[in-house]
């Protein structure tokens, strides 16, 4: 038994304990706190599985932004918690048996050795040089499966439209209700003055290095979003009104640029989202730069929630 193996056994044990706490805890707030810790532990698992890109995404999105949204919701729903009627014992037992069976079935698949190891890694690497990218995951995201990535960005915009649509009619185009967090706090103010200069540099670096190293538009955009949210929470910058044209343009500029590059592919490279030879990398960088901006703004607005008050005239 090597030290690395023992480390991983402890990591998995810790992950499962925290996961059980998320499900079993009586208090929703502590379950959400456990979920944030769970996401960070899971990010370490991804590093151990040699998937650094996923580790960054999990830490930033799965744990970070999702955790923030859930914390906000748990805070607001605190009074409503007691009203829920708990599930009866027979149903709980039946559910436990069902879930154990499903878990056992999946575990059996994991344990049964595959007859042949199937991998697309050689294919992915064989043509990666043509794109000029050095990060195979970025290659898959922006070259081989660019259509998926385009739709993923559009899903984010649609989610934002959905969240905004949940505002009462009279607040449409108003200011998101991030005010829940706005309590003057000297530590928060200090952090929101110290961190953004660093965070913005790290976010841009993350996008830039994503072409050749783990990172990319999504991880970079999330860090930019985090900096923006921090500044808004601390009250140093006001939450913008959602009817501002510049704001809405920023939300769509990324997907629109990516879509435009995809359409140009019809004319110059013989297919949707195809890149002309030799221009793949510059085009991908342009798309990623626009996407980084849009992701940052979209995530920030998703975290801010639906409009809840009107602009003061």
């Amino acid at each position, binding site marked *: 038994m090597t030290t*690395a193996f023992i480390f991983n056994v402890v990591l998995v044990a810790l*992950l*499962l304990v925290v*996961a059980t706490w*998320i*499900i079993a805890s009586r208090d*929703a707030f502590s379950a*959400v706190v456990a*979920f944030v810790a769970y*996401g960070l532990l899971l990010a370490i*698992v991804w590093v*151990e*599985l*040699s*998937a650094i*890109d*996923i580790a960054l*995404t999990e830490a930033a*999105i*799965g744990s970070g*932004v999702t955790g923030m949204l*859930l914390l906000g*919701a*748990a805070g*607001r*729903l605190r009074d*409503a*918690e007691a009203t*829920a*009627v708990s*599930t009866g014992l027979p*149903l709980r037992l039946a559910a436990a048996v069902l*879930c*154990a069976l*499903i*878990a*056992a*079935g*999946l*575990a059996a698949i*994991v344990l049964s050795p595959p007859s042949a*190891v199937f*991998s697309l*890694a*050689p294919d*992915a690497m*064989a043509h990666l040089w043509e794109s000029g990218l050095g990060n*195979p*995951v970025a290659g*898959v995201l922006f070259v*081989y*499966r660019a259509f*998926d990535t385009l739709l*993923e960005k559009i*899903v*984010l915009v649609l*989610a934002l439209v959905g969240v905004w649509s*949940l505002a*009462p009619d009279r607040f449409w185009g108003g200011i998101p209700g991030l005010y829940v967090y706005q309590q003057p706090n000297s530590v928060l103010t200090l952090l929101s003055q110290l961190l953004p200069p660093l965070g913005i540099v790290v976010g841009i670096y993350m996008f830039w290095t994503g072409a050749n190293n783990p990172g990319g538009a*999504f991880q970079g955009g999330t860090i930019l979003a985090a900096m923006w949210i921090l500044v808004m929470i601390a009250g140093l910058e006001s939450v913008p009104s959602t009817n501002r044209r510049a704001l809405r343009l920023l939300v769509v500029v990324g997907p629109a640029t990516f879509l435009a590059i995809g359409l140009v592919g019809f004319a110059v490279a013989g297919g949707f989202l195809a890149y002309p030879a030799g221009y793949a990398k510059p085009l991908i960088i342009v798309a990623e730069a626009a996407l980084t901006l849009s992701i940052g703004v979209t995530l920030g607005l998703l975290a801010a929630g639906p409009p809840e008050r009107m602009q003061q005239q």
Partner: protein
Amino acid sequence: MMNVVTLFGLCGPVLVGLGLFGLITNPQPLRKILAFNLLGSGTFLLFGVIARRGAAAGLGGDPVPQALVITGIVVAFAATAMAIALLLRLFQETGQATLDPGDANDTSAATDAS
């Protein structure tokens, strides 16, 4: 001896089972959203193990399933954000956060006068 990848591979099914159990048995919508995310991360972990087993061509893992997981995490986040917004709106309208139709009968007439 069991290797590390199989260890993580067994962690995935347990997370799927735990998440599904929480999704079925926990009555609070917020806890259902949490459980749903747990279930999703278990599935992603299974993908990650498949990717790790497909390590070839000098890479630590097959980049195709890895990229799929990244897309999956983003889409799961979008769905979670939407679900939380729906839940908060439900709470705003009815004053309670429950999926039980019997509890909301007296407040269901609350509409948004604009």
